[in-house]
């Protein structure tokens, strides 16, 4: 029956006008997204500003050879390790917040807490960099001048001391993102059938047991899918976090440099176009493979939630 209707209707639906409506978007994506895909050939060139994009000499895999001899290990290690920490710790914190939030019961309180926890997510990395500066700068920072004075110990020149930075970056990441990611888990908890909890209550299950044996197992599909998606993006880092928060301090590069900041330095500061392009292409290709793989796994687990 349905088929008949749509067949009849196809006569009325002409492709031309619909394509015309979509045209501005199509043109934009071709320019903004597709043309640069062909620009990856820059990674195989010895770019010279005089000779230009097309005139520069080809140099085969030299850029890649250089990249892998020099910095690839460090930037890939940093990118992946930070992302792993963010995925694991971020997920645990987000679920914890979501569970507690759902136990509040009262909507007004939920709203207040949720708004406050979400607020950091709305700030730009630039502003967060400023906030970090208020805490960390050596001469007037809150940590050096108040915390360390209060508890004793020596002042630290934070922006030139690499050691604490993995911890600082993790903290800043959690501060900005936990409120945001807990929203999704709250939505999945809200979707759990209430009668299951009621039944458990009647059977004498305590709150903590209900969480342990109902809420958490019920969240598993959401966790698995969000984690896989995040793993698919493990080769990409949040440029703002690694550029603005450490104030682009050279002394910290060993622990703050990720693929994205590395590409930025190559492109804008060192003007080494070939190398930046090589790193970017490496990121795109591995990123692509990872996304497709992650999606294939998601598809296997739960077709509904697969991207494609």
């Amino acid at each position, binding site marked *: 029956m349905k088929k008949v209707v749509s067949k009849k209707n196809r006569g009325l639906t002409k492709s031309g006008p619909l394509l015309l409506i979509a045209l501005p978007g199509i043109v934009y994506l071709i320019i903004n997204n597709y043309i640069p895909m062909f620009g990856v050939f820059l990674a195989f060139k010895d770019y010279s500003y005089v000779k230009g994009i097309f005139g520069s000499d080809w140099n085969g895999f030299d850029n890649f050879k250089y990249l892998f001899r020099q910095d690839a290990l460090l930037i890939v290690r940093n990118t992946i390790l930070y992302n792993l920490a963010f995925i694991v710790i971020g997920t645990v914190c987000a679920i914890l917040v979501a569970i507690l939030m759902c136990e509040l019961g009262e909507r007004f309180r939920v709203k207040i807490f949720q708004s406050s926890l979400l607020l950091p997510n*709305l700030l730009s990395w630039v502003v967060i960099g400023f906030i970090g500066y*208020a805490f960390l700068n050596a001469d007037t920072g809150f940590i050096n001048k108040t915390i360390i004075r209060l508890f004793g110990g020596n002042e630290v020149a934070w922006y030139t001391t690499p050691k604490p930075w993995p911890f600082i970056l993790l903290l800043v990441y959690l501060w900005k993102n936990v409120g945001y990611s807990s929203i999704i888990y709250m939505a999945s908890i809200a979707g759990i059938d209430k009668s299951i909890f009621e039944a458990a209550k009647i059977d004498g299950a305590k709150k903590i047991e209900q969480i342990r044996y109902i809420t958490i197992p019920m969240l598993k599909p959401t966790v698995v899918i969000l984690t896989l998606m995040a793993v698919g993006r493990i080769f990409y880092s949040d440029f703002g976090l690694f550029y603005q928060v450490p104030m682009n301090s050279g002394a910290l590069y060993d622990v703050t440099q990720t693929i994205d900041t590395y590409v930025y330095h190559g492109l804008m500061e060192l003007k080494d176009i070939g190398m930046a392009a090589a790193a970017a292409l490496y990121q795109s290709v591995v990123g692509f493979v990872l996304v497709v793989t992650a999606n294939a796994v998601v598809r296997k687990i739960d077709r509904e939630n697969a991207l494609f």
Partner: protein
Amino acid sequence: MFKQTDEKRFRIFSTVFLCLLTIIALLPIILIVIASFTDEKSLLSYGYSYFPKAWSFNAYIYLINQSKLILRAYGVTVFVTAVGTVTSVLVTTMLAYPMSRKNFKYRNLLSFFVFFTMLFNGGIVSSYMMWTNIFKIKNTIWALIIPNYLVTGFNVFLVRNYYSNNVPDAIIESAQIDGATEMRIFWKIIIPLSVPTIATISLFTALCYWNDWLNGLYYITKSELFGIQNLLIKIMNNVQFLKSGSSNYLGVGNMNLPGTSVRMAMAVIGILPIVIIYPFVQKYFIKGVIVGAVKG
């Protein structure tokens, strides 16, 4: 009886714990607000503090005297946010609508065309080279609007899914039978039906433009075109930059620059609009996050 107290105890624990988290979330923001009202001398000798020894409005007075520079940056950001958001919403809905039409011949092709942009990208280097060398976008206001954010696959799919779930085929078919053109159907039927999804993507897009500093970092070197975020970056690197805007004002240029507190006052000015608007749009924001996460 027992269950009652167990539940109550858990509720109290949740409230206390979340109160603590809320304080942790807000304290850093409060610190810069307080710092912006702290007397410069007190700041320099005792550092940033929640309980400053001396309060002062000097940072803001200074900024008001420099208002030309700040208003200009605000103007750039407001313009970019407004034009960017309106254009983005228009182009995004126009692209998403045909993708939602079940009997559109190129529906799947178009969906894949959009989807592929979410899977693979040429990287910032080639897109930077394209925008600067071919489109000569460097140091124009368009550099802040056009690259990267105008149409994102994420938003397109958000809107397409909304249309697929909320616009019944029957409405479109009856309009077609009445002889309405596709353009007319889009404007008169689809757009009025899509207010909730337009609210959501407008919010995401506006926030994205307001907070963006990357396009400015890559494409803008002229200070007249700095938006508020890029002005902040400039001031963090060189607080003296603030003085440059004032050299034409007699006397103001010679005023002592309260460098430390003024930085924080600038940051406060940068987040003020968000904090003011946020309570009114929070609902849409949260809805959008949920919809987007489930199927983005």
